Every structure is written in C-alpha cells, then in structure tokens.
C-alpha cells in the first residue's frame, strides 16, 4: 500500500495549490511545469513566485519539448542548492533517467511529480489552435480510459504510461472524477519529505492497476495496428528509401530527442562527409547519388546510438518538417532491441545501459 493523499478538488487545482504551498513554505525554491505563456502557447516554465502558478497547466496534453531534455539542461552544470519540483510526463521522466545514466544531469535536489498519462497532442496543434478545441474530448477519453485518436501515434500506442521513478504520482488516467477529486500517491521515501508538516492525513491506497491494465490492452492493440502499417513499408532497402528519401537532413529529430545528447553529432562531424574522390567512386558505382547523401545511414546510425534508450515520446515526429513517421519507426525498432536485453529505458536509475555491460553467456544464437 502507498501513502496517498485524497482531496476533494479538481486534480489540476489541487496540484496547483500543492505546488503553491511548496513555494510559499519554501519547501522548494522553484517549480518546473507547463504554463500558458500566450493566448495559445504553453511552454515549460521555471516558476519561483507562487502567483505565477495561476496560469500553470501541469497536466496539459502537449509536449513542446521533452522535459527530460530540459531537466538535463537544468541540472547538467550543477544542480540547485535548494530543492526544485518538476511536473513531467512518464516518458519525459524516463528520458531524464536515461540521460542521468549518461552523466547528463542529476536528480539531486529535484523532486519529480508525474501522473498516469493519457498522451499529448502533436505540437503543431498548438499553433493552429486545435489543441485548445480538442481539450474537452481529450479529457473525456482520459477519464473513460479510452484511446484518444488526436494524440501522437506514439501516445495512442504507449504502454508505459505509469511513471516509474516519480516521488509523487497523480492518478489521472481512467479516473472519472478528476474534476472533483485528486489522488496523489507518494511513491518514494524522498517524496515524503514534502509532506512532513502535512495536515490532511494519509490514506493507504495503490494505483487502480486493474483499470490501467485494460487501458494497456487497448493501447497494445493500437500499437499492433500501427506496427502492421509500418511492416508494409519496412520490408527492404527500397521500402526504407521510400520512407526516408524526402528527409532534409535537418536532423531536427536528433536535436529534440531526449536521448541524443552529443555536443557534436557523429553525423554532422567531418567523418560523415564525402570527399571528392568518394563522390567520384560512388558515381562510378551508382550512376547518380542524392546530395547531401547518407539519409538512410543517418537514420540507421542514429538507431544504433539511441534505440536502446528510446522512450518513444514522439518528439521527433512532431519536429520532422517532411512528416516522416520517424517516431513509430524508432519506437518499434527500439522496442525490439530493448526486449532483447530485457531492458526498459528509464525504469531504474541503477540499471546499467545494456551496451556498457555484458553477461559471459548470452546471445549464442547470433554467433556462427
């Protein structure tokens, strides 16, 4: 059983109140949350003044940037002296954990609040205002625990919607009365620090896993459907070319990827450039060559770097200017790689990344 606080306020209001008191009582010196910054734009914001939390939207179904990447940037050069609390989505949290494993951030003095996630809209919907319009229907489906058709494909097919390493976990998905109540599970020892002088008493309560399991089943079915569509294309080199030949090599996908963390991407380094003689020999061989070359190489190469840790957040999809379904492809291949190592990225701070460890006896099937 988990220590839990149940209040009779809408979940969003309760959360905002809670965050405000944390600031007021100086239990934290900053709150990292989504906030409306213009009439239609929401953005992750670092809030220090309680009043500024009025237009915070901690549960808003948008992911302008994967917060895992942001928390990494926040703590990379040294974490804060006083605690900060961040409200992020499960996949963002997992992204952050993967980055911490790569020394790209620290959880010191950082409290994490997360929630059972219903998914997010594609970022573009913010621009044309459809996000705002679809909010109603979104929350309906979330309450009912149904698959919402307007959210990112990776979200429609996401089976990892329960946060793993959060200090506080809000119960949102499949909860019919989130407008009237807020269920806040304290899911870590660290989390209890925030409730030391807490008046309203704890109840012992766990996540409603039964409900969540049925939701996971629906999501799995969605996933299989989406994978089937991919499989039609991912059959040979021509299929790959069909998918990727419109790639602009803008590498936006890697720029927004919570796992891509290199200063200079291998594929933007001199190593990835062709010299005159190489173009010459490529021409002899192929008769012609698209320039700049190496789109497939980039995509597969990036897979070899990050598929092991891909948290399938879908950020790459949103940012692709030519609508390549890169997120689902990475999710699918990432999953197969991760399953091989029986690894769930971001599940546990202490679990090493499979590629920096090994078993003496394994994978005999691939040796010949």
């Amino acid at each position: 059983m988990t220590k839990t606080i149940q209040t009779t306020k809408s979940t969003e209001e309760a959360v905002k109140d809670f965050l405000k008191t944390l600031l007021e009582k100086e239990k934290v010196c900053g709150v990292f949350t989504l906030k409306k910054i213009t009439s239609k734009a929401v953005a992750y914001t670092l809030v220090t003044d309680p009043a500024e939390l009025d237009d915070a939207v901690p549960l808003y179904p948008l992911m302008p940037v994967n917060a895992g990447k942001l928390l990494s940037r926040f703590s990379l050069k040294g974490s804060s002296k006083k605690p900060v609390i961040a409200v992020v989505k499960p996949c963002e949290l997992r992204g952050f954990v993967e980055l911490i494993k790569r020394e790209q951030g620290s959880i010191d003095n950082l409290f994490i609040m997360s929630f059972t996630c219903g998914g997010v809209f594609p970022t573009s919907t913010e621009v044309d205002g459809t996000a705002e319009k679809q909010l109603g229907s979104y929350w309906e489906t979330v309450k009912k625990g149904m698959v919402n058709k307007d959210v990112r494909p990776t979200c429609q097919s996401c089976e990892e919607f329960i946060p793993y390493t959060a200090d506080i976990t809000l119960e949102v998905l499949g909860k019919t009365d989130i407008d009237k109540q807020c269920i806040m599970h304290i899911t870590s020892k660290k989390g209890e620090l925030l409730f030391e002088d807490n008046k309203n008493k704890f109840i012992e309560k766990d996540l409603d896993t039964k409900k969540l399991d049925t939701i996971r089943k629906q999501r799995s079915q969605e996933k299989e459907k989406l994978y089937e569509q991919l499989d039609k294309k991912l059959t040979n080199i021509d299929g790959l070319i069909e998918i990727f030949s419109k790639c602009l090599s803008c590498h936006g996908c890697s720029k927004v990827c919570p796992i891509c963390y290199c200063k200079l991407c291998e594929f933007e380094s001199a190593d990835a450039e062709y010299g005159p003689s190489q173009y010459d020999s490529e021409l002899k061989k192929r008769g012609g060559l698209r320039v700049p070359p190496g789109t497939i190489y980039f995509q597969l190469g990036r897979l070899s770097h990050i598929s092991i840790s891909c948290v399938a957040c879908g950020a790459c999809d949103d940012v692709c200017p030519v609508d390549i379904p890169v997120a689902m492809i990475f999710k699918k291949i990432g999953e197969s790689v991760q399953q091989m190592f029986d690894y769930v990225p971001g599940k546990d701070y202490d679990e090493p990344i499979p590629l920096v460890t090994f078993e003496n006896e394994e994978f005999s099937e691939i040796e010949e």
Partner: protein
Amino acid sequence: MNMKKNEEFMPKIIAFLCNWCSYAGADLAGTSRIKYPPSILPVRVMCSSRVDPLFVLNAYLGGADGVLVAGCHPGDCHYQEGNYFTRRRFAMLKKIVEGAGLESDRLRLSWVSASEGTKYAQVATDFTSKIKELGANSAKYKIFI
C-alpha cells in the same frame, strides 16, 4: 544501374578480423594452404570491439554483399572483455537491420581463434555460399540512399 548477373556472381564480403585471434586464424588457413573463395576482404582491427556498428552499416549501405565480424572466443579476448561488448553491439545492430526490413543475414559474427585456420576457411566458405543465395546487395546501386 542493372545488377551483375547472378551466375559468376562473386560476393564482396568485408571481414573485420581482430589482430590476435581471427587475423592469426586467417593467416593459419593460409600457411595450411586451405582454399576458400576470394570473396573475403580482410580489414584488420586490434580488437573486435573496435568495430563500431557504424562501420558495418557503412559497408552494408556502401554495397558490401556481406559483413563478417570475427574475434577471439568469449573469455579469450586479448583485451579481456572486448568481444563481450562486440557481441552486444552486434546483437543490437542485427535487430535494427531486421527491424528496418533489411537483410540481417548479410551480417555475421564468428569467433575464430588463432589456431582455427580450418574454421576460418569454413566460415569464409559457408558465408560466401549463403551470400550467393541472397544475391548481390542491391543497396550498392541505390541513388537515393
């Protein structure tokens, strides 16, 4: 570009051989005068763990009909643990290549010790005939790659 006819098709197979075991094994095949197809083009590395998966991708997309990575048997790595990492990276790469709908059979990982000249020749022969079945790697002639 039309592809070479499959009869008289002699594959080009890049073989990354670790200096201490597999390259020595390949040399032994030579000193023992064991014949195998001329398809194999050895690239010597100090340890199989030097073989960045990107090299294998490069070779594949560049048009190599097959890529062989060979190193010391697990537990016998000259650098103690290198080949364990090689194996993991290779396992991952194979999955990615499969996932992308490419022919992962064109990639092969073999352990060949310095004393296994015969095995090396065997691997070279088997792999070559396997590749012959698969035919030439069409990636070689793609323009929009």
